[in-house]
């Protein structure tokens, strides 16, 4: 992906975020697998430097076999251009306008201007795939083929967005779909999801979303180092995106439309329902299980990050983001156990005020500071201060 944006003449992080679809076929995929796939994707991106890509780009004159995977233009409006990968979008030559019925193959890039759109379908349509390239978009198709995957035959497609937005949907078919759409800020990988949208305009303006009636799930995994957010935190953070939800560059959900999700004001005890009181009393930090009265929507660990998905299958094997796989109930029990084991100084919910221990520089000798832990006793300090101050004189 660095090479894909070489003409942009900026240093782009190879992968900011990997967005992975966790559908029914991917239950139990651990974070390690996600990281492994991310490394594979990163390695793939390095191979896509300009020189290498130009050498590998198929020649226009070589026709693709009839059963080769291709995208065909079914609808379009405005000016939509196509060229070989490696041709500068600003160059006056090398580009031509595409027409309805034209095929797009691996090694080509598509550029749309304002008021221009192109709707593509995969041919052969197994699995049935439809894609919409929105206005002001530059997307290139680096890989498009049928291949043998780990779980059988799959339609393998890799696209890269330099800027702009793409929507796509894949219906179920006898062949699996292995589609990945990469941007400098995020990579969306799916294997059975519709209808999703990914947009990228800058590192501070990208997002992914699933439509309200969408099918499947997307897990966004952000490479914190690539995003410049690595301040001693783990290299990756993840977010799950469900139908009706979206995620943006802040790795926050911008839209949540879950039926059972509502703002619970924990300060208003009289306004809480029985279920909400139960939730607060059982899981005081509020960062764990969401979904009340048995409706488990999602499960997070104490950091607030997503652990599992798939609310329908309570007994399913699920993954938590420490790399292990557990049954759902085991995962719930483990989180509750971790809560009880938390040190006294757990700052969740109290903003770190008034409890626990703090590091204090007690000795400073010959330029060498010795740091030790000391328990702050506010009452004792106040008492000592009052004694030093002397008795309070009534000035009335």
């Amino acid at each position, binding site marked *: 992906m660095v090479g894909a944006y070489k*003409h*942009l*003449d*900026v240093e782009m992080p190879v992968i900011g975020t990997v967005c992975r679809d966790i559908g029914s076929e991917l239950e139990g995929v651990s974070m390690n697998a996600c990281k492994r796939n991310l490394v594979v994707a990163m390695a793939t991106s390095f191979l896509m430097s300009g020189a290498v890509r130009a050498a590998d780009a198929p020649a*226009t004159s070589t*026709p*693709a076999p009839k059963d080769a995977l291709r995208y*065909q*233009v*079914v*609808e*379009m*409006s*405005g*000016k939509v251009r196509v060229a070989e990968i490696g041709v500068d*979008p*600003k*160059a*006056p030559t090398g580009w031509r306008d595409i*027409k*309805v*019925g*034209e*095929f797009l193959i691996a090694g080509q890039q598509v*550029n749309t*201007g*304002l*008021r221009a*759109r*192109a*709707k593509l*379908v995969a*041919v052969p*349509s197994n699995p*049935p*795939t*439809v*894609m*919409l390239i*929105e*206005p*002001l978009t*530059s997307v290139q198709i680096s890989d498009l083929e049928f291949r043998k995957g780990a779980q059988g035959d799959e339609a393998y497609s890799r696209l890269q967005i*330099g*800027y702009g*937005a793409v*929507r*796509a*949907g*894949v*219906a179920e078919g006898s062949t699996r779909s292995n589609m990945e759409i990469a941007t400098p800020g995020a990579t969306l990988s799916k294997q059975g999801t*519709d*209808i999703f949208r990914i947009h990228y*305009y*800058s590192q501070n*303006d990208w997002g992914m979303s699933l*439509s*309200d*009636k*969408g099918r499947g799930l997307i897990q966004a995994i952000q490479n914190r180092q690539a995003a410049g957010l690595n301040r001693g935190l783990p290299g990756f953070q993840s977010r799950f995106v469900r139908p009706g939800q979206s995620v943006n560059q802040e790795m926050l959900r911008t839209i949540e439309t879950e039926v059972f999700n509502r703002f619970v004001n924990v300060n208003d005890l009289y306004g809480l329902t029985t279920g909400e009181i139960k939730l607060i009393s059982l899981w005081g930090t509020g960062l764990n299980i969401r979904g009340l009265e048995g409706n488990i929507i999602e499960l997070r660990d104490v950091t607030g990050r997503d652990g599992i998905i798939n609310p329908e299958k309570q007994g399913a094997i699920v993954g938590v983001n420490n790399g292990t796989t557990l049954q759902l109930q085991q995962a719930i029990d483990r989180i509750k156990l971790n809560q009880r084991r938390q040190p006294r100084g757990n700052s969740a919910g109290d903003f770190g005020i008034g409890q626990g221990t703090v590091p204090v520089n007690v000795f400073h000798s010959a330029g060498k500071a010795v740091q030790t832990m000391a328990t702050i006793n506010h009452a004792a300090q106040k008492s000592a201060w009052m004694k030093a101050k002397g008795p309070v004189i009534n000035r009335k």
Partner: protein
Amino acid sequence: MVLLRILGRCSRFYGVTPFQNTIAKGGRSSRLVLLACILPILGCLGPRKEVPAEDPASMSDPAFQAYLAEAPYVTVEEAYRAMLILADGEDTCKTHEERQEKLESRGIARAAWKLKPENVIDAGSVSYMVMKICQMRGGINSTLFGSWGLGDRRYAMRELVYRKMLEDSADYQAMTGDRLIGLMARADDLMEKKGLYESTKIDLSDETDRDASGELIVPASPTTAPTE
């Protein structure tokens, strides 16, 4: 008063100029009140330091739009061309003066801004032009004050931020190419929804591409011979 004269010279505060005489005639207290309410002196954006390798003026509209996506900063000349492409779908003008005249005659840009073509354009000016092109009314402040020039660009930007078309920043901040592209894409989407230009409705959404049972509808391949 020195401050007022400086502000009066700066084109950004052209809307404040009528007050100069009033303040000059008024007493010390009125000047103090004005100073207390004064907007910060804004440094005008100058020419960009790095000259692009290719001349954007010689590019076609599609190539120019691709150039904008990579441009670190956008000049007034480039922004005017981008706004004409957004408004009309294409830019038929040959010179900056033609574009300026066209935008100002349509009320999209204002002559009082006194923007120089080689200078970097600010986000506020672009926001105002986009707001006019998209025929957005704006809020109370925009109507009361922006209509005659006081904070017109600032309130336009606040309107776009409110509509989530632009991320929040200072209105005098330099406009970058990637921000402009993102804004233009969202503005184009808004214009299409409002029917401000004729378009064939090509969409991929739950409303248009799902059958009664909620399954995705994938269009059939065209029967015409493919062109490769």
